């Protein structure tokens, strides 16, 4: 079985700042990994490198055995990486359904002539796309909200719609940037279950950035800890919990002896 994702020595330099410093990671298909680290540790920058939004300054990224670093972002998406954003970035003036149909349409492009003449083939495509979009909405608990403008959805619905839109491009790897940000414990628990369910049902690998340790520890199989752009630790939740370097990075060296449990309680 080939690896889903392999990043080797990925670095990103902004002027004098090395935002991501030789980060390497590998994921198996259908795995759930998490990237954690303090604010400004370079987590989102790493995502941007993986999706080519800002191409890495050095290093190589392979997806399913093909090299993708520096490809145009839309080609990276076509290879199967989809993402969500820390500050939700939906198409605010499109309806929820249309938001998803944009993603679906990329996989099933319509021809200009077909669209103009409304040929039977075109109509069949449109019907299929719409049905699939409605199914996705229903799947993520957004049934009945398809005809609302994205900007008018509630915060939690927007988060889920963003995930639905990412799924609509039929990715093999889903990057979630703080999916549970700003959610209370009940909501973030539901989000956790949703993420696990998506992995099971869609068979995608998931890489997530998250600050809520409860979520991270609960569903991740592997955790990568970034600090100042450097990957200071990687391993299973249990290993990370016990890693003194991680605790030092999070709480400062003095608090290290209180352990990760304290942190989890705070979160």
């Amino acid at each position, binding site marked *: 079985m080939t690896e889903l994702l392999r990043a080797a020595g990925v670095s990103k330099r902004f002027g004098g700042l090395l935002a991501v410093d030789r980060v390497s990671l590998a994921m198996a298909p259908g795995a759930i990994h998490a990237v954690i680290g303090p604010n400004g540790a370079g987590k989102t920058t790493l995502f941007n490198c993986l999706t080519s939004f800002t*191409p890495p300054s050095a290093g190589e990224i392979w997806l399913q055995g093909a090299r993708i670093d*520096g*490809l*145009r972002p839309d080609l990276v998406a076509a290879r199967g990486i989809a993402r969500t954003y820390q500050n939700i970035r939906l198409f605010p003036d499109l309806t929820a359904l249309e938001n998803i149909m944009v993603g679906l349409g990329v996989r099933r492009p319509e021809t200009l002539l077909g669209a103009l003449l409304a040929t039977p083939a075109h109509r069949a495509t449109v019907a299929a796309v719409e049905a699939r979009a409605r199914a996705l909405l229903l799947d993520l608990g957004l049934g009945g909200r398809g005809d609302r403008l994205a900007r008018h959805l509630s915060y939690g619905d927007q988060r889920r719609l963003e995930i639905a839109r990412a799924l609509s491009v039929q990715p093999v790897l889903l990057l979630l940037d703080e999916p549970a940000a700003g959610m209370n414990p009940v909501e973030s628990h539901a989000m956790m279950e949703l993420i696990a369910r998506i992995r099971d049902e869609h068979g995608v690998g998931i890489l997530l950035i998250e600050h809520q340790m409860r979520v991270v520890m609960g569903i991740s199989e592997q955790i990568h800890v970034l600090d100042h752009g450097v990957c200071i630790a990687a391993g299973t939740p249990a290993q990370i919990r016990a890693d003194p370097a991680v605790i030092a990075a999070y709480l400062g060296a003095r608090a290290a002896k209180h352990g990760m449990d304290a942190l989890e309680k705070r979160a």
Partner: protein
Amino acid sequence: MSGLLPRLQDGWRRATWVDVFLVALRLLVLGIVGYGFVAGLLHPRYGRDEWASFLVFGLVIGAIYALIALGYTMVYGILRMVNFAHGDVFMFGAYAACFTLIACNRNGLLATQPALSFALALLACMLVAAGLAILAERIAYRPFRRGRAMAPLISTLGLSFVLEYSARGMFGAQNKAFPSFPAIDGAVLVFGLSIPRVQLIVMLAAVLTMLVLTLVVMRTRMGTAMRAVAEDQDAAILMGINVDRVIVFTFALGGALAGVAGLLYGLVFKQISFFMGFFLGVKGFGAAVLGGIGNIPGAMLGGFSLGLVESLGPALFLEGIGVAAPYQLRDAIAYTMLVMVLIFRPRGLLGERLAVKRA
């Protein structure tokens, strides 16, 4: 060397056919300019005096572009918005100067006290243009400071039309002749070259104005505040700077410079009209981008460069290609250069300096 090859390979891997097209376009333009240049040099058609006069004229028109570009660059540096009405502020400045000079001419002041008349005209055009610029800010910018990017663009376009056709209604559709006065007529010998006196005066006035501007921006409290706001608006607010006032001041300053440009334009070209502002404004914006938008020395450099290219270009390389009546294409050269800069080097010659965050 070993590092270069993979990078080139990488570049090819990422390149699209659009990139290829753009490179080809660049080479094509360079080729045409280069060929024309060489061909023009091989068959010299103009003497030394003619080249000198092209050069001086380029510098003069360049100075006017630079003054207009400064207004754009200061406003864009802070607000990141194009002010289509800026060219019309310049046009109103020219009219204000023109009418002041006509009034002075009527009561004889122009003949007896040319310096005083000139000063009065300068004052009038600066006041009128600064006032209009402030008005433009009120009408077309302030309501949209936090709005979509397209709204101020469109509303300044509308304002530009209002100003143009108001001027047409008020001052007439015909060209207006600038009064000529003996003090600026004639020519001066500089290094054995005969240069019209008016061009020298205009150059001198433009350079002085730019010096004053540099002093205002670098040395006064308001200038410091301006630079602070251009650097980082939020931080400036935290430092207790009244951003609204700084923005109004910036518009006023830019307007005043455009007013001076109007006066100088009138002196050089002797004729002004209501529709001259828009495209001069566009060229001024081009000059600002050429120099690096938000960059004050850049705007000056951009203005002079644009003026020189426009005035030397037809003789330098269009003649060489064998274009008939190349001077008709002067504007085409200027606009092509503008488009090229926007496409290939939007950061300009000296690099752009923009506010970190949008307002």
